[in-house]
């Protein structure tokens, strides 16, 4: 295979064949390891070593997930006055380093925003995407924690207040193309953050479209604020 390789200029997202021909992987016995191997950002994960900077942010070899999100679970509120409405419990939960594309998980996260927890679990059970299984597990864990640790009395009395996807650290891999060209494959990881709030879900999660009455009122407001240029001051 090495003999048949052609020299060619590296093309965007592909690397030169001569550099690759000395690469060794567990699944490719034709290639051999050499000192002048690929540039590190294109090497497969098995050949990349973690530097001290990387190690600091990945304790135990696991990349660090959201740090600020779980801190919200530690806030303590002052006792409420009698005239104040009862403050709803808020539970912040996350799962980090999910082997799923954040762009794809975003659709699932958006889908359940503003739903009650029961409805969200129902929807995710039958959602055709693969990531819905992970999100469902996360929701069930969060619901369990809410009852055990955060003082929520009824596990169904929760709704999805926030449902956010964050990008995790990507692992880079390699694939061959025709005509001695190579391309990078990104293996994507993501973090999923969810905030459960006690109470029934709101009628509108996003601002609802203006009704005809609202539009009329806006028009009248502007209409009544018209001024006459160079006119008498009232």
């Amino acid at each position: 295979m090495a003999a048949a390789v052609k020299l060619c200029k590296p093309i965007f997202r592909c690397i030169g064949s001569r550099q690759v021909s000395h690469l060794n992987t567990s699944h490719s016995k034709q290639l051999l390891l050499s000192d002048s191997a690929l540039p590190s950002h294109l090497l497969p994960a098995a050949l990349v070593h973690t530097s001290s900077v990387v190690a600091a942010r990945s304790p135990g070899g696991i990349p660090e997930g959201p740090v600020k999100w779980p801190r919200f679970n530690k806030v303590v509120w002052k006792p409420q006055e009698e005239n104040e409405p009862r403050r709803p419990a808020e539970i912040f939960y996350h799962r980090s380093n999910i082997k799923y594309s954040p762009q794809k998980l975003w659709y699932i996260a958006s889908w359940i925003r503003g739903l009650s927890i029961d409805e969200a679990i129902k929807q995710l059970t039958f959602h055709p995407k693969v990531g819905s299984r992970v999100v469902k597990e996360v929701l069930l864990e969060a619901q369990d924690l809410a009852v055990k640790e955060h003082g929520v009395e009824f596990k169904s009395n929760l709704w999805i207040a926030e449902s956010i996807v964050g990008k995790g650290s990507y692992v880079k891999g390699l694939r061959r193309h025709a005509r001695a060209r190579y391309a990078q494959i990104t293996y994507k990881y993501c973090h999923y953050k969810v905030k459960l709030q006690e109470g029934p879900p709101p009628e509108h999660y996003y601002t609802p479209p203006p009704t005809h009455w609202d539009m009329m009122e806006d028009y009248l407001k502007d209409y009544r604020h018209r001024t006459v240029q160079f006119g008498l001051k009232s």
Partner: protein
Amino acid sequence: MALPLRSLRFSHISWNKCLGTHVLRKEHASFGMVIQMQHYRQDFKAGQKHYNPKYRRLRAKKVIKIDLPDYQQMKADTNLSMEEMRAKMKKEGVSPPTPYQERPLLITCTGGVFEPYVPPEGDGRKSLLSTARLKDQYKTLEMKGKSALAIRKIKQYDEDFKVKDFALRAQELFITVNETLQNWTEAHWSNGNSKLDLSAKIKKVEDDLHDLVTERAFPDMTYDMKGKTIRWKWLESLEPPKVTHLRETDMISKENIYGQITVRMHSKQLLAVYDRFGRLMYGSETLPKDVVEYVVFEKHLSNQYGVWRLHGKIIPEWMPARGAILRTFVRPLLEEVTEAGEKSVDTEVVDASKPGDQKPLPAAA
């Protein structure tokens, strides 16, 4: 109603990637009406296969496979039990860590209450004239036996020690301890601000609390209170505090002596416990309660800097249950442990994903 796809909010989903059962929700940000996508078979995946399946295996070989890290498994591995961890290390050929690390330790309190005082049954509830109460009063009047020995031992180390004075001091200490605990819970208030660094404030209160309470009692008092707020008030003392029990013990060497004193207090108190969100969990700020308490105080006698501190509390079995907390629970499913040692799951199998499946507790508390 068929609207052109490019005008939809998710217009960057191209038509051939639409998967069967998607239905856009009723409230649409710009249109506010029901839009239904055309249905496809659920397994229909357009544009994902090469048109010529003949060379698919060669095409697959083009991808250089790598072992992806399974972060979920790695995280689970950190939570292994002792046996599992040992087995794993043995498998990997890693030697276990050194079992001991020499460090100087200062033991300023004992691990428990030695020969705990057994309060007479019905104390604080039965009338003064009942026979049982009279008998008990007779018993407590004579502080003979070990208690007398303990008093002598304590006086060896502390000449000015007097039992009657101690009872009053102990009550004052008890009030201070509870007030400091209240301050400790208040030190955690951040009122929704997760960025506040309260560690210095909390440490200051904890230092004060450690001076009033032994190391053994500190976690008993504070662990369950983390995230909660207390409002406690001592209204009045219904009976003068009484020393009921004295003991002294030694640890490791005979010269290292600790003294323990049990004090009986009958008082009127107010207690209200609030949860993390400032909602009442237990008790009341307006309704006082009469409380009979047996509090144990300890002092490291052989330590010249030893101080009488709160060490524990004796809660007898005959004491009536305290008021129920202001919430309900679902009865937990417990695994039955058979004689053979195998666990069989409770007959009521409940799927956690199905809401409303679990039965609530029966009405009688």
